[in-house]
Structure formats: structure tokens, C-alpha cells
């Protein structure tokens, strides 16, 4: 294979949607209703999907040939700009995770684009009186560009740029029907909430920039490990906040970005409201891809996380997954129910990452993307078929009218619930991914105190599994000297490709055990998830129709159920066999060399499962309990559910109001902000304005004095006075100038006479001698 072929294919896949975006923006209105949509499908996602497929097979070949590590190391990267001493790199991150994510995003997005054509044909494309059909696909293309760019970027700066772009697209698409008030508020809420998280991201990015001196993901990880080993750089700082070191703050800051984008607990409020957007948007952005970007980010910066930061990640993930699952139980809006389910599942991923289940979390990301996108499309189909009715209480019995939707939705329900046969490899997506997260968190919570015993125990138990071989390889490869010093350490396996290998993997001496209650909460939620999903499915498709009007109209269209079927097949087959090995490869190939690699799910899950039968059946069988409970309650319609609701009224009210978090934010932030604004206004009016006005009045008086008195009577007086007096003098002087010659002569004669007389008078009074002399001389 020629050098950089895969990078070029990836770049082509990223740029094609951008071209599609501009083409649609420039020529979209001329293309007309179905053509613009198909254009978007082909160029916005068809080309990237082709590229992704090519890259996938190319990468598989490389992996089989053992060339993948070299490809990763030699992936194209360049310098975009140099800020200070730090080069801002631009490049393609080429590893198994990128390939898996790229394929997942393009595959799901392609079918959602496809679905959108059908969806938009049944929807009004009029926004604010203008036909915006083309704009919808332009936005979708722009989103595709941003999302793929995010996945491919090898530098944090570009990751951040694309990160903001997907946020923008989310904003634009939630508010696609911006002439209605609800999407407007939803888009604002989404954007502003994301800004909060992005601010944290920016802080983390700045810390990376200043202290690690590079923004390239791999370099940053290497530098971080070196600094941790030598106690220099960011580890030399004594700055602490909330008991966190600067290095922890960096990790938490980066995680804050993920909290916003992946809607984790305190910042989760925007995601349910974002369901006001069109359903394909909900499926694409707010279920499958963009919300997973946060998880992807955490996975990418996993190597920059300290144990404290990871503990924080676990905590947030654990809170999210539990609290949101409980809210999902009481939702009656089908899309809202799915939204809270998404929140809960994202919480699982984040929790998994924080606990060290890197592989399991990312695997869950991909399986979840498949089945959640499918379920959202299914809900879109249902809503479309039921004439925009979203209340599940008014549905029921739809399986007769929408068989394909019903079955695919059920596949999604089974997958998210983790259906499978415990102890075997037979099961749907969630069975592997979610259960693995639970197994790892169990290990972190209960067996972490004595890592040495832990390691021995599970090596022995899991002898039959190929993964254990890997463990041994990983552990043997690590530095024996350091291994003696700190057991609770990471193993790092990319000695072959990374010259900084020594000590890179084993960074932190004391990674704490996970609190046990976190595991219990996650386990508890594993029982809630199947319950609310089965409840949603049963209420929608099973039982008797509860609203004849809705039931009458219900129908499904091929344009919309083809994508459903494809994604259902993907959910069943593709995930485990295709994506699982890729992600495991990404972890072992060193791109995720992490502090908890030693207990990574890849390595130990089967061992843990086998060692603890209660875990295997307790987690693996959760779906059955949840399903049966849901069916038992909702078998005969809503009656039993309503009874329960009345019995648990306070709890129900709390959940229905989502823990009053929106209200809390309203009071604390919105009202608080308004209060601050009022105070500021008061201060402005009564203090600042007063002072300013005082000064203004004083200045005005002074100016009046200067202008009217001093200037007019003083300066002007002098100037005018001079002018006036010279004019008056001129008048006087011109009086004798009569123009009459005789007057001049008269004057001249008169003056001459006077002068003569004066001289005469003067000389007569002077001295007689002179007079006599004159007379004498005259008389001579």
C-alpha cells in the first residue's frame, strides 16, 4: 500500500461533506426538493462512507500484516502555525479507534441522511416563510464535516475547533424550525450549556499548551508521562484548587468539555430539550455521534488524566447514569424517554472510562450509537406515522401497523438492555459492552486494594481466554524495576513504536480504589435500563390501542424503515465482530496506554466474570428482571402504572420534574443573573450615573462661564475692541480727506504758515545777536 493512502482517504472523507455543504449553500435553492436531499446523501455521507469502508479494509489488512503500528507512528502530520515556542500541529490520527469511529459515524450518518430524505418529504420545509429544504441538508453536511474532522484530528487544537463546529451544527439543527419558540429556547439552552463545558475544555487546553508544550495528542501524552516520572513541568507546580493538583485540573478541565458535549450530570439539562429538533437530528447528533464526542475526547486525553481526575470522571459518570435512568422511567414522551436513556448510557461510558474500562466504554459508545440511532429513527417513524403524536400513553398496539419499526425497535431494546446468555458469547451489543464496564468497575471497587493478589488470581482463572495471554504480554513487557515499586500501575505495550517507552505506562503510584457505592449504583441501573426501555416499547407497540385517532393514521414508509433495518442488522452483527477487535487493538497498540491498563476490560472481563458467578448472572441476567417487571406492570395498559404512580407520588413528582434541576438553574443562574443585572443597574443608575452627571453638570457650568463670560466679554471684547477702535480712528482720519484739492492746498498753506510763524516766534525769542546777524546779512 502506498504511503499515506489511508490518511488521504480519511481526509477525502472529511472534506467531501464540506464541499457538499458549500454546494448546497450556493446552489441548494436551485436543486429543489428531492434533489438537494439526495445530493446531501451522496456527497455529504456517501463519499465519506466509501472512504471509511476503504480505510477500514486497508487498516484490517495492515493489522493482519502487522503494519498498523508503523502506520500509526508515521501518520501524516504537519505544523499549522507556531505560537510562541509551541507548534500547533495539524494531522491525521490514524489508529484503530479513529478507523472504528470513522466507520461508525459514516455508516450511521449515511443511513440517517437517507432517512432524512424520507423524513423531510413528510415535513414542512418552510421556516419563517421560506423554503429551507436544502438548508437542512447543508447543515447536516456541515455537521458531517465537523464530526469526521473531530474524529480524525491528531491535535487538540483542531479537535477543539471541530468540537466547536459540531456544537454550532447542533445549535443550528436543533433550531432548524427557528420560527417556533420551543426549538429556539432549546437551541439556546444547548449552546449556552455547552459553552460552560467548553470553557473548561479551553482551560485544559491552555494548561496542555503551557505546561506540556505541545498540542499533539501523542506527544502530549509522552511529555505528560515524562513529567510525571521526573516530577517536572506540570507536576512541579504546587498550585492546588479543591485539593486538586494542576495536572488534575488539566484533566478535569478537558473532561469539562466532555461533560458539556456528552451532557453529563450538572450540564445534562440541554439534551432532553434538544429533542425539540427534527428527529433525524436527534438520532444523528443527540444520540449517536456528537454526544459521543465527549466520550471520544476523554478516551483520547485518557493518558493526560491523573487518578484524581479519573475519579472525578467516574463520579460524574456514575451520578449521570443513575439519576438519568430513573428520570427515564417516568417519561411519557417517546423521544424524551430515549433522550434520558441516552444520558444514562453516556454516563455508563464516562463511568467506564473513569474506572479504567477504556475498551469497554468505547465499545459501548459504538454499540450504543447503533442501537440508539436506530431507536431514534424508529421513534421518528412512530411520530411521523402517528401524526406528530409523541405521547406514549396515546399509542399502543402499533405493531400491527408498523411491524418493521416494531421489530427493529425491539432489537434496540434488547441490545441496550444487554440481552444475552451469561457465560457465553451469545448476545447483543450491550451485553458485552455494558457488562464489561460493570465487571471492570467491580474489580476497581472490590479487588483493587491488593493488586498483586488480584493479578495472580485472574491470571489463573481465565486461562482459557486468549485475552489473558495478552495480559501476560503486557505485564511482562513493563519495566520490572518499577513493577516492584508500584503495583497499582499501568502497563504499556508500545515499546516497539515509542522510544519513550521506559516508564511511560506506569505513571502513578497510588491509584485509589473505586468507592463501592459507585459500583452498586451502576449495577442497580443495569436493572432500571431494561425496565424503562421495555416500558417504552410495550407502551408504544404492544397492548391495545389507547387512542383510536392515532391508531387509525399509523403507517410506515419504506424510505424510513430501510435505514432502521440496516442499523438493526448492524446492531446485531457488526458491533462485536467488527468493532470490538479494533478498539481492543487501539488499546493494546499503545494509543490508550493508561494507568489502569492492567485491569482493563479487554484483559480481565472474562476472568472477572468467571471468577464471580454472582456478577456474571447478576449483571448478565439484569435484562430479564427488568423486562419481566415492565411487562408485568404495563401488560394491561396504564392502570397498574397509574396505581404505582399514586403510591409513590413524591418520588414520581421528583422524577417527573427531573430533580428540579432546571428550576434550580433557573433560580440560581437565570434569576441570579437577572438579580445581578438588577443590582448592577441600580449601582449604575444611582452611583455611577450620579457621579457622572455631577461631573457633567459641573463641566457644563464651567463651560458656560468660560464661553459666555470669559470668551464673549473677555477675549472677544478685546479683539472686537481693537477692531472697533481702529475703525473709529479711521473714520476720524478720513474726515479731512475731502477729495477737494483746494482743501488740501488750504491745509498745506495753513500748516506751512503756522510752521513759519512758529519758527519766526522761536527765533525772535531766542537771541538778538543771531537776529541782528541775520538782519545784517540780509541787509547787506
Amino acid at each position, binding site marked *: 500500500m502506498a504511503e499515506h493512502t489511508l490518511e488521504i482517504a480519511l481526509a477525502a472523507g472529511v472534506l467531501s461533506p464540506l464541499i457538499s455543504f458549500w454546494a448546497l449553500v450556493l446552489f441548494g435553492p436551485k436543486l429543489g426538493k428531492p434533489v438537494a436531499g439526495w445530493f446531501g446523501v451522496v456527497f455529504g455521507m456517501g463519499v465519506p462512507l466509501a472512504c471509511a469502508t476503504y480505510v477500514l479494509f486497508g487498516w484490517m489488512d495492515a493489522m493482519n500484516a502487522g503494519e498498523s503500528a508503523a502506520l500509526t507512528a508515521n501518520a501524516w502530520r504537519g505544523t499549522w502555525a507556531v505560537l510562541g515556542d509551541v507548534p500547533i500541529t495539524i494531522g491525521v490520527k490514524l489508529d484503530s479507534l479513529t478507523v472504528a469511529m470513522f466507520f461508525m459515524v459514516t455508516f450511521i450518518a449515511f443511513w440517517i441522511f437517507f432517512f432524512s430524505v424520507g423524513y423531510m418529504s413528510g415535513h414542512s420545509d418552510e421556516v419563517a416563510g421560506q423554503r429551507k429544504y436544502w438548508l437542512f441538508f447543508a447543515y447536516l453536511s456541515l455537521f458531517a464535516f465537523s464530526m469526521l474532522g473531530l474524529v480524525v484530528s491528531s491535535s487538540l487544537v483542531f479537535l477543539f475547533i471541530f468540537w466547536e463546529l459540531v456544537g454550532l451544527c447542533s445549535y443550528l439543527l436543533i433550531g432548524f424550525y427557528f420560527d417556533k419558540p420551543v426549538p429556539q429556547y432549546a437551541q439556546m439552552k444547548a449552546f449556552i450549556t455547552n459553552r460552560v463545558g467548553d470553557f473548561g475544555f479551553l482551560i485544559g487546553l491552555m494548561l496542555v499548551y503551557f505546561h506540556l508544550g505541545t498540542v499533539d495528542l501523542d506527544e502530549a501524552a509522552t511529555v505528560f508521562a515524562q513529567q510525571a516520572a521526573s516530577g517536572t513541568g506540570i507536576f512541579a507546580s504546587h498550585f492546588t484548587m479543591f485539593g486538586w493538583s494542576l495536572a488534575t485540573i488539566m484533566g478535569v478541565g478537558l473532561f469539562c468539555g466532555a461533560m458539556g458535549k456528552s451532557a453529563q450530570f450538572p450540564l445534562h439539562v440541554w439534551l432532553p430539550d434538544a429533542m425539540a429538533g427534527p428527529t433525524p437530528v436527534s438520532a444523528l447528533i443527540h444520540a449517536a455521534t456528537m454526544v459521543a464526542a465527549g466520550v471520544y475526547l476523554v478516551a483520547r486525553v485518557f493518558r493526560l488524566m491523573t487518578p484524581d481526575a479519573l475519579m472525578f470522571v467516574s463520579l460524574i459518570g456514575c451520578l449521570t447514569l443513575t439519576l438519568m435512568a430513573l428520570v427515564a422511567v417516568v417519561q411519557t414522551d417517546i423521544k424524551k424517554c430515549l433522550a434520558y436513556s441516552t444520558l444514562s448510557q453516556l454516563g455508563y461510558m464516562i463511568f467506564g472510562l473513569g474506572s479504567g474500562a477504556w475498551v469497554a466504554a468505547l465499545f459501548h459508545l459504538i454499540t450504543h450509537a447503533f442501537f440508539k440511532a436506530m431507536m431514534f429513527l424508529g421513534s421518528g417513524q412512530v411520530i411521523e406515522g402517528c401524526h406528530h403524536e409523541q405521547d406514549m400513553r396515546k399509542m399502543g398496539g402499533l405493531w400491527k401497523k408498523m411491524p418493521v419499526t416494531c421489530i427493529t425497535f425491539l432489537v434496540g431494546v434488547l441490545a441496550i438492555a444487554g440481552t444475552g446468555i451469561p457465560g457465553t458469547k451469545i448476545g447483543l451489543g450491550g451485553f458485552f459492552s455494558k457488562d464489561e464496564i460493570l465487571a471492570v468497575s467491580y474489580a476497581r471497587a472490590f479487588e483493587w486494594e491488593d493488586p498483586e493478589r488480584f493479578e495472580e488470581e485472574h491470571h489463573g482463572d481465565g486461562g482459557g481466554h486468549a485475552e489473558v495471554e495478552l495480559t501476560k504480554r503486557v505485564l511482562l513487557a513493563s519495566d520490572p524495576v518499577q513493577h516492584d515499586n508500584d503495583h497499582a500501575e499501568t502497563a504499556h505495550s508500545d515499546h516497539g513504536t515509542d522510544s519513550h517507552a521506559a516508564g511511560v505506562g506506569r505513571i502513578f503510584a497510588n491509584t485509589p480504589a473505586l468507592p463501592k457505592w459507585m459500583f452498586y449504583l451502576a449495577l442497580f441501573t443495569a436493572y432500571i435500563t431494561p425496565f424503562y426501555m421495555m416500558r417504552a416499547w410495550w407502551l408504544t407497540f404492544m397492548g391495545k390501542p389507547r387512542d383510536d385517532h392515532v391508531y387509525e393514521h399509523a403507517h410506515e414508509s419504506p424510505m424510513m424503515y430501510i435505514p432502521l433495518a440496516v442499523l438493526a442488522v448492524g446492531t446485531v452483527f457488526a458491533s462485536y465482530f467488527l468493532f470490538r477487535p479494533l478498539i481492543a487493538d487501539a488499546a493494546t497498540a499503545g494509543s490508550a496506554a493508561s494507568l489502569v491498563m492492567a485491569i482493563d476490560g479487554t484483559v480481565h472481563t472474562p476472568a472477572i466474570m468467571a471468577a464471580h458467578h454472582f456478577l456474571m448472572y447478576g449483571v448478565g441476567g439484569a435484562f430479564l428482571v427488568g423486562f419481566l417487571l415492565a411487562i408485568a406492570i404495563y401488560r394491561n395498559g396504564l392502570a397498574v402504572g397509574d396505581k404505582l404512580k399514586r403510591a409513590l407520588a413524591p418520588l414520581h413528582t421528583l422524577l417527573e420534574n427531573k430533580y428540579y434541576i432546571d428550576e434550580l438553574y433557573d433560580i440560581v443562574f437565570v434569576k441570579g443573573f437577572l438579580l445581578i443585572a438588577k443590582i448592577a443597574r441600580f449601582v449604575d443608575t444611582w452611583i455611577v450615573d450620579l457621579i457622572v452627571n455631577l461631573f457633567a453638570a459641573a463641566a457644563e457650568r464651567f463651560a458656560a462661564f468660560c464661553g459666555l463670560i470669559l470668551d464673549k466679554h473677555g477675549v472677544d471684547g478685546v479683539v472686537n475692541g481693537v477692531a472697533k477702535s481702529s475703525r473709529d480712528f479711521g473714520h476720524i*482720519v478720513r474726515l479731512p*480727506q*475731502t477729495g*477737494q484739492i*483746494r482743501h488740501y*492746498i488750504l491745509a498745506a498753506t495753513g500748516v506751512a504758515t503756522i510752521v513759519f510763524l512758529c519758527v519766526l516766534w522761536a527765533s525772535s525769542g531766542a537771541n538778538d545777536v543771531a537776529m541782528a546777524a541775520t538782519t545784517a546779512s540780509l541787509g547787506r
Partner: protein
Amino acid sequence: MTIGLTHYLIVAAIMFVAGLFTMMTKRNAIGILIGVELVLNAATVNLVAFDRYMGPDRLDGQITAIFVIVLAAAEAALAVGICINVYKNLSTVDVDRANSLRG
């Protein structure tokens, strides 16, 4: 009675005053010109007389007198030219009408 300097001076003074008076009273420009000639000639008579009686061995006064005569001739020619132009412009030689020099 011998004719002395005093007589000449008296005649010159009479001529001078007459010329002056003519200049002041005449409204006709030509008349004024005649007055000017009288004044000049009075000065010439004085010059000649003073030269004859105060410094007979020198010719300063005589020469100055000749200068004055020449100047008077030139001035008269000039003045007549001005008069003609005034007449052309104003159709009169009445100096009271030619008052554009008034301040």
C-alpha cells in the same frame, strides 16, 4: 530809489500769494494750473534774486531757477494731459466734481 532785494521779494511774495489764492479759489483746472505757474514763478524770482544779492559769485540760484523752469514746463505739459483725461472722463474740468480721491 534803488531796486534792492526786498523789492524782488515783495513782488515774489505777491506773485506767490496770488498763485496760491488762484489755486484755492478757482474751480477750473486750467485756472489752478495758472495758479501753480504763478507759485513756481514766484519761487523762481526768489531764487534769482537771492542769487544775485546773497551770492553773486556763485551760480547755484540761477541754475536752480532754470531747473524750476524746465520742471514747470514738464509739469504743465503733464497737468494739461491730466486735465484732458479728466475732461474725457467727466466731461468737465471742474475740480469739485473730480473728488474720487476723497477718503
